[in-house]
């Protein structure tokens, strides 16, 4: 597993994290290409179903990026997302998947730097965890 390149899905809120990702682009701040962004109107829209499906299909890591505390464009979508993530994390443990593979992060629209940082840290973390056991069992 020396050359393991994890695949990571990032569900990003249009109002904050997705904008921050664009800002990282315009400031040319590099981050690992392992992170694939899916744009959502609010982190609160990200369903357990979306997350679990990503893992089922072979994602090594998933994160949901919403606005900073109190800054949600829709009042409390990020808070709801955080609760849901905590719930799904427990569920992942139950089925034998490390809960660290799933994370909730908060990034504001102005934080291009933080977006790149988060993407790098999470990729590194997942790289250390190794490939998702689901993927391993599927390829058996």
């Amino acid at each position, binding site marked *: 597993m020396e050359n393991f390149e994890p695949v990571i899905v990032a569900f990003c809120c249009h109002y904050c994290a997705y904008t921050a990702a*664009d800002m990282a682009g315009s400031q040319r701040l590099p981050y690992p290409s392992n992170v694939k962004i899916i744009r959502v109107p609010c982190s609160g829209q990200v369903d357990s179903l979306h997350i679990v499906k990503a893992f089922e299909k072979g994602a090594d890591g998933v994160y949901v990026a919403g606005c900073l505390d109190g800054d949600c*464009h*829709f009042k409390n979508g990020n808070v709801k997302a955080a609760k849901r993530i905590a719930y799904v994390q427990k569920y992942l443990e139950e089925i034998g998947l490390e809960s660290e593979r799933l994370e909730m992060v908060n990034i*504001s629209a102005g934080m291009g730097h933080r977006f790149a940082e988060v993407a790098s840290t999470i990729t590194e973390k997942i790289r250390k965890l190794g490939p998702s056991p689901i993927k391993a069992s599927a390829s058996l």
Partner: protein
Amino acid sequence: MQNSKTNQNNKVLVVGGGLGGIRTALDLAEAKKNVILIDKDYTIGGLMTQLDRTFPTNNCDLCTIAPHLSESNRQEYIELLTMTTVSNVSGEKGNFSVTLTSKPRYINLERCTACGDCLTHFPGCVRFNPGLDHRAPTCMRYPQATPQAYSIDLDKCEDVEALVKICKAGAINLDDMPINREIKCSSIVLSPGADVFDPSHLDYLGYSNLPDVVTSLEYERILSASGPTGGELLCPSTGKQPKKVAWIQCIGSRGLQKEAGAYCSNACCMFALKEAIVTKERFQKDIETTIFYMDMRTFGKDYELYLNRAKNEFDVRFLRSRPHSILQPDGTTDLTLSYTKEDSTKRFEEQFDMVVLSTGFKTSADTRQLAEKMGIELNSDFFPITEEFNPVVTTKPGVYVAGTFEGPKDIPETMVQASAAACLAAADLPETIVEAQAPKEELVERDVLLEEPKVGVFICDCGDNIGSVVNVDNLVAHAAALPYVAVAKAEGHGCSRSSMEDIRKTIVEEGLNRVVIGGCSPRTHEEKFQDLLQKAGLNKYLVEIANIRDQATWVHSGKPKEAEKKAEDLIAMSVASVVQAHPLEDQTIPMNKNVLVVGGGITGMTAALNLADRGYQVYIAEKSDKLGGLANFLLTTLEGGDIQAFVANMIEKVKSHDNIQVITRALIVDHSGMPGMFTTGMQSGPQMSYRQIEHGITILATGAKSNRPKQYLLDESPLVKTQLETQRYLFENPDKVKQWQNVVMIQCVGSRTKDNPNCSRICCQNAVKNSLAILDINPDARIFVLYRDMRTYAFQEKYYQMARERGVVFVRYDQDKPPVVEAAGDTIDVTYYDTILGMNVTVCADNLCLSTGMIADQESNKELAMIFKLPRTEDGYFLEDHVKLRPVDMPVPGFFVAGTAHSPKLIRESVTQANAVAARAQTMLAQDEISLGATAAIVDGKLCAACLICVRACPFGVPFINADGYSEIDPAKCHGCGMCVSECPAKAIQLMQFEDDRILAKVEQLFERITA
């Protein structure tokens, strides 16, 4: 069409179709006012179209300006006349008669398809590209040109008949004649721009005989993908890539050379930084960049951060020096620069491959003539004399100015002035609302519901932005093999008119019913492509943009293979998702025409008065118990304007205005609703009683605070004052000031530091202002100004010059060697290191003035940002939607920001922003309803178990259980967050545009590719 319009006196004439003129015209048109936009050139776009990238985002200019250009062409309220100048003007405000002269283009615009055949066969009959264009010249200035047509230079054409024959469209018209026409207009906006200083006569710089000495604009053209070298950086003399490039600042500015302006050209420091950063970005370690400068003037919003990036991340070298000469020793291709350093009297020599002269702005003879025809007065530098507190108002009523014609400035400030001029020009129009001439063309939508998905994928190379990192042809080949893809094509600049037209044609001809664009961010370009789909007869929601630029090539440029793989993935995901897309309809709601202005300082009051005068009901919510804000503490401006009289007059007008209600001691506590119909709750008055206001527009004019860091004995010694306090002290205690012997001022106290990295913009001119005021009272006072960079931009430079002439001593200090301040009885000892003497010097000061600048009002901005859901910058100011193109619009429609709530600025700059905001607000207020888009949640009643989870989940209380016993969501009230969707246990709710099957399709597609 022209004739019916030209005889009515209900329009505004905008002279100059650069970025500023376009903005003015668009703001007026969106507010349903008629505009005639003229430009002397063959296409509109002005100077900006020649730039490669813009600071501080290093975006491609064409990408950012192009949507605006085509927008301006399609607006039904704008009549565009190119190759047209003003010959004569008579009349006055409200009733001008103007004679316009149009030169012959020899091309029928209606017929020209811009196929380029004439150019291929007759490249000689052509004009354009200023300097440096050793490629085939083209008379279309750039790929996204508006109007999209060629022009012919008959004088250069030898075989006219052959030329006529070559055009298959029959568009070449040799009988074209100059046309004179008389138009009537109520007001005139002048934004013809400025020239760039020509350094040919400065022989010591060698510009006219050394090919590798270029101006900054020429360097920009060399870097540009549409430039003479196709975007490759090559020395003009050798055709090799340079290894060492130097920039020399202030060429033609700050009055040091022959025919130079006395002013600072404002934008050149950022311009040079950008060029150096872009150069470094492209060539990294292979190239050295050095900037020779006098003061780095990065005083704009977040510009200091850009300077820090250039220094720390890109390793650009900065040398504070004015080079003596550029010479080329015989037999070499090197350029030898001689210079001296600030801490040395020795002469240094250094070799460079290319030298870029940062040439400043200069008014042109044309624009001076224009000013004369208009009857507006000019200052000694030939820029218009404008009103003390309102820089877009000229000496002639009804004639307004904007952009670099008004004075040297950068793009964001040009945009702000352009909007401000639109606001004031519109106020001169007659009251009646003019209806649009032609009814809107009904766009027929093809019904695609029963069709099998047939996807077209169009991939941009975006010049170098995408094309230089990944192979677009590979992406096309990959996309072509995806399921349901019928057509895959490379499109160059997908947003250019020719590409847009090609995409439209392809959709129609191939019968496509879904489209994917591989290009930039949907945040900026989705709307443009949605419009395109409508023109191609498709529902606008059948397009998806794969963000392969901002989120792939820009961030993975160092790893092109990975970037290409990721771009493939992103395109494949978009295709999978768009296959699931279906036609949607936009929701509209009525527009509430009340305005809430938060903050009752000069900015808030100016915006309020403008809108109230147009008949809109305005509420001003002011936190303190009186109007006026920070201006209540200010006495005079640098130019001598009486601030107190100005504020008092404005407060009087506001208080007596029938359409303005002032609410003092107002504390905003809650906010709800959506663009067009907001409700804001506030507590106000001595009892803090609660009330709600319904409004469609919110203007943030909350101002900033005067900074007060605990430094240099401030608040410990009575002899230490801020500049603000000093100003009042001078006014109140002239007798004491007369006894001062030594005065010291320290600049950048609490600004440009680690904790507060930005420049406060106002302090340098404040120090100059107070120095001159002290000398007026006490001519013998010795004044020492300790500074890091003197940032007396634009015409402030004159006063800086004056202060030096009158004996004020300006001494530079280093950030790591700040002055030391000690109390010494009746005086303050200030010790600083003098670089020329090479030793410490101590001044026993009778008074120490600290330039403490401004900081954002963190607490109240944070509070408001949370209530209104608005983003802020890292230093706490409100963050506008786009630095350059939408400088006063917030990302949430209906919200605008102006004045020091945006960033530190002077009163006249705040007033300009306030006017600009009023113009931008009117573009919304002129509409009777506004579109909310189609992102709304829809319940499938058959699946709904009426469990009430959505009712509880919705943050806005929209879902309810209807008479049929299942949940219902009013699409006009739905905010489109999708929270109910994710909570619904029966999956009975779907959010349009972000349906579960579309999101899951992306996920599945991504992994299908990876596991395959």
